[in-house]
């Protein structure tokens, strides 16, 4: 299980491939990989958005991401999980988050990937500030789904 915060842009599928081959214990055992990638849009609330800053609470953010993944491993039979989340300055099309989950069968992978993502959105201390045409503004709440 690996949690990472990144302050520079990353390629989710490259990271996924690299991680998957590096995990010796996974080899031959996983039958299902579920992934979610969140990407920055160039619009929000009907307005163009040029950039975004992602703030976090150093220490608390990592601790809660770790706990969310641990909870998922208690609820489902998982072989491994990887969460990478951006902080700092982002531009449209930049990946924000990668969640990847490996299991023997698809049901656990699909369910755990969704669970980790929803828990992350409601519990992990991150805050988005958008650079929109009308100035910068804090995003006040997440979209429901």
């Amino acid at each position, binding site marked *: 299980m690996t949690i990472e915060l990144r302050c520079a842009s990353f390629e989710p599928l490259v990271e996924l491939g690299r991680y998957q081959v590096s995990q010796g214990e996974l080899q031959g055992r996983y039958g299902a990989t579920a992934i979610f990638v*969140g990407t920055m849009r160039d619009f929000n609330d009907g307005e163009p958005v040029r950039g975004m800053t*992602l*703030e*976090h*609470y150093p*220490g*608390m953010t990592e*601790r809660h991401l770790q706990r969310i993944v641990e909870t998922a491993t208690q609820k489902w039979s998982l072989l491994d999980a990887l969460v990478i*989340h951006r902080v700092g300055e982002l531009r449209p099309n930049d990946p*924000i*988050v990668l969640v990847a989950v490996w299991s023997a069968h698809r049901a656990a992978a699909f369910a755990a990937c969704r669970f980790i*993502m929803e828990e*992350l*959105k*409601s*519990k*992990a*201390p*991150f*805050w*988005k*500030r958008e650079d929109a045409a009308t100035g910068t503004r*804090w*995003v*006040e*709440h*997440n979209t429901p789904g």
Partner: protein
Amino acid sequence: MGIQVKYFASLRDRLGRAEDRLAATEGMTVAVVWAALWPKTPLPPNTLTAVNMEYASLEQIVRDGDEVAFFPPVTGG
């Protein structure tokens, strides 16, 4: 040691600072920490609170050396 207080995101911008420190008193709660530092500013609705990086209620007791944080709803992912 005292209590270390942190503010994040829009709340920090609104308050104009990121951190405070205050002396702990017997039976001090998270709500009392806020009231002691911001007597004229009601805690904005929906503000989340944490003690030592764990979510906490306004009634939670804080002790000398604790870190208390106030922040708006989270918007990651």
